[in-house]
């Protein structure tokens, strides 16, 4: 019989998704895959927010979760545009070769 999920179970799942996404951000060498890894992290964060919302019996977590999703959509749009421009100008999606945005 599987153990009944508790608040910890949801937090642990959110953390695992965050760590998988963070690993992808630092290990991948393609801007699009890095972008997707960030989205995986954001999905983990949203799950944590909603679970905390349910645990505390409030609605604020869902509101913030919706905002995080809206921001992630904007970040996705901007990231795709930047990836497109990188390919047009440098013919590469390797983040190590993108030097235009360096300080």
């Amino acid at each position, binding site marked *: 019989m599987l153990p009944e999920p508790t608040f910890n179970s949801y937090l642990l799942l959110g953390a695992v998704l965050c760590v998988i996404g963070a690993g992808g951000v630092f290990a991948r060498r393609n801007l699009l895959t890095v972008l997707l890894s960030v989205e995986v992290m954001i999905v983990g964060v949203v*799950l944590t927010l909603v679970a905390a919302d349910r645990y505390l019996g409030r609605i604020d977590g869902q509101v913030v979760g919706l905002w995080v999703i809206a921001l992630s959509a904007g970040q996705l749009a901007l990231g795709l545009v930047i990836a497109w421009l990188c390919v047009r100008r440098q013919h590469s999606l390797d983040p190590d070769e993108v030097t235009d945005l360096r300080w």
Partner: protein
Amino acid sequence: MPTAASRYRYAQSMETWIFWGCAALAVVGALATVGQARPARAFAVMPLPVGAVAALCVVLNAPLVAAALVVLGLALTGVGWWVATSLGVLQERSSPAVIDSAGGARRFGVTLVALLMLELAWVFRHIRGASLREVDAPPMGLSAMTVTAVADHATTALLLVVLLVAIGAGALLLTRRDPI
């Protein structure tokens, strides 16, 4: 006719199965997304973790967040697939298992993950095994969320709108400078 107690046990058991099934799907989908060397395939796999987490949000009585996640997943799949296949570049040059970033970025990543683990350990110590509330709480609809967003989080909402407008303007500027 099942009694109320047996119906409650059945619902509990269903929630347990749904949680563990969706958790497995989310972790496998996230690993498959991050592990793909071809971005087009990664975009194709991405709806798996997003959909699994959306199902968990429904279990947690947050259908609006689940709907937003589904929309995000569809947008990711559609737009991302189109961009990845249109760009045509699309295989990574080295093995995906090799971390080949700069040393500073690697140290930053290790520090970040270590801090996350410390924070999680602290949280788990304080709320070990806490049960979630029953699902028969009052429905949290769109009107309640709007009131909360406008009343309690007005400043954050305003900042978010400004940030989204800035993101849109930045994307427009970039595409006007070098038309797609």
